[in-house]
């Protein structure tokens, strides 16, 4: 990591609401090796230790994904759609990307998953540049579920989930026991075991999304990126999806980055928020620190009050849309 200034509003010396996670997140984005001399107080010292501990403690299972000095655009656009100096998806935590339509959340997610080659900068997965990894090798470490997915209607859920094993199978290899076990696990975890023989075309929107999530789970990756997995779903299925994500993190130490439209949902489920505005990072950190009335006004253009003392995370009561 390079010694970049944290974006405005995250003041790294400020201790945040719930200590450990805030400090850990702060430590990830501060260059612990070169910077401590500048901030000579005890706070910075403890951050260095936590950062070191976090780095040593990691390595076995959880993976960190970070982008450095990124500029991402599409062939059809002259200017980059997303520019950010540093973005970190901390290992073994849930990070939610929030922001209004067109703020570049999905673009950033596609760049982080190497679906979109950045014009500048690099994405590093657990110390390795993702562009240096083979496509299948990357797909064994990092799973991505796109926003809209189309499958042939007559495909069964089980067959769909088996496609998640694609990166684990050679060209001529047939299904082995590992594949079968991974598929079984994925079906269980996503709660769609009873739908295994159903045609994807006959499922409801929510069941379909869970089936697709099962497919990504069968990839058995350490990092999982989900692009708006709850949009268009009813409340029951939204919660089902988010519970799967939480289980993944808690039981398997999977690093998750998820684009969410509903900032209230993001505040409830995520360990970290990354708020985006006009293709840049506006703020990041734990929900209690990021979700403020100021953020809702500046980023979402909504007049709202925030109850940050609520036990389930900051609670937002929107009042009205702010005119241009």
């Amino acid at each position, binding site marked *: 990591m390079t010694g970049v200034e944290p974006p405005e509003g995250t003041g790294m010396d400020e201790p945040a609401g719930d200590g450990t996670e805030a400090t850990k997140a702060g430590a990830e984005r501060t260059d612990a090796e070169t910077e401590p001399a500048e901030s000579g107080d005890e706070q910075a010292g403890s951050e260095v230790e936590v950062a070191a501990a976090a780095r040593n403690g990691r390595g076995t*299972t959880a993976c960190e994904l970070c982008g450095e000095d990124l500029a991402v655009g599409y*062939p059809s656009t002259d200017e980059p759609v997303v520019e950010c100096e540093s973005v970190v998806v901390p290992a073994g935590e849930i990070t939610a990307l929030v922001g209004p339509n067109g703020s570049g959340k999905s673009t950033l997610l596609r760049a982080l*998953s190497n*679906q979109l080659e950045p014009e500048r900068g690099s994405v590093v997965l657990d110390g390795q540049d993702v562009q240096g990894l*083979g*496509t*299948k*090798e*990357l*797909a*064994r470490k990092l*799973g*991505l*579920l*796109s926003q809209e*997915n*189309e*499958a*042939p*209607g*007559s*495909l069964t859920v*089980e*067959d*769909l989930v*088996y*496609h*998640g094993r*694609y*990166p684990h*199978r050679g*060209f*001529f290899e047939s*299904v082995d*026991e590992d594949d*079968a*076990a*991974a*598929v*079984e*696990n994925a*079906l269980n975890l996503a709660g769609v075991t009873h739908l*295994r*023989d159903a045609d994807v075309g006959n499922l409801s929107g929510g069941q379909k999304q869970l089936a697709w999530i099962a497919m990504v789970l069968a*990839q*058995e*990756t*350490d990092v999982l990126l989900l692009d708006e997995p709850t949009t268009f779903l009813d409340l029951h299925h939204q919660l089902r999806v988010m519970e799967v994500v939480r289980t993944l993190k808690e*039981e*398997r*130490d*999977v690093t998750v980055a998820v684009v969410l439209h509903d900032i209230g949902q993001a505040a409830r489920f995520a360990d970290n928020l990354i708020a985006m505005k006009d293709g840049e990072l506006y703020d990041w950190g734990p929900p209690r620190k990021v979700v403020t009335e100021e953020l809702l006004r500046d980023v979402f253009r909504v007049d709202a009050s925030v109850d940050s003392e609520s036990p389930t995370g900051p609670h937002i009561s929107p009042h009205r849309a702010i005119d241009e």
Partner: protein
Amino acid sequence: MSSDTRTGTAVGTRAGGRFGWLDRSLVSLVVGSALIVLGGALVQVSFGAYSMTIGQAWNAVFDPAVWTNPQVLLGFFVGEEATTAFLSAVGLSTASVDLSKESLIVWNIRLPRVVVGVLVGMNLAVSGAIFQAVTRNELASPYILGVSSGAGLVILLTLVVFSGMTAFLPLFAALGGTVAFLIVYGIAWKNGTSPVRLVLAGVIVSTVFGSLQTGLYLLADDISVVQSAIAWTTGSLTGTDWEQVRMALPWTVLSMLLSLVASRQLNVLLLGEKTAKSLGMSVERVRFALSGIAILAASAAIAVAGIVGFVGLIVPHMVRNIVGSDYKRLVIGCIFAGPALLVAADVGARLALSPAQIPVGIVTGLVGGPYFLYLMRKKERLGEI
């Protein structure tokens, strides 16, 4: 990811299901198609200029003189010289066998036409099925991506301008199709291709090549050249022989095996480009390789029968309606249903206006058009797989 929750018993329905994909719909399709081919063959060998009864025809087909003498049977499929060389190498008899008149007619004239029809049918059907996955469009066929126009143009060029080289016509036709497809791919390429761009580029190339073809017709001064050109560009099995079988067979076997192996790639491609890519597929490379297999199959068909339309379009479509969109089943279905359609159509082409024969491509067009009309009226969404 930890795998602590895995258990040995957590092996699902796949464990015992090595042939799980072989379900009732596929079996009935395969059996039905095989019966149609058999019936078509029966009709083809029984009727013709030299009349014989059905009993005589079938006696000729199962003539022990053919089936018990490997040198005769092998001679048909690999050529006499190669057979002699091979059989004398392994120490078997190479003596020539005298066949009855009926057997000679059936085996030398009528049966090879059926065999060519079988090969052409499976090639075109599988080729169409692959192109439909590559473009993710049910309306794609070997010919929408420029193959037919390229082959047609080269056929006309050879017949009209370079008439001394007609011996290489099959090879040229296949080459023309391949080159046209490469042009289409090149036009469609802009930071990678997309299904829509491929189809549009195919239309552009077909239009230009079509105009050139029409222009060439005006240069032809001999009516027989024009007739020959029409037979090639509409697709015909008239006059096909064991030589055509030997020409198409190795490429057919190769492309059918490759398409079966590639069926999983085709299935993943159907999930969409984004998903395929996030699963670690090099989409562009796979798409090009799959197109190569489809071109190989289409070329093998074009080289022996010219451009038979509609088979590559409707057969995958009918098979998909019966067995679903899984490509393993689809390819197997096409390998049987393609021949069924082509052999049946050729019965019509050869016998409907007897003694005159019409190109089989006209019959497939006459059958294919109404079938598509029916589909268009019946289905809400036609096009997407």
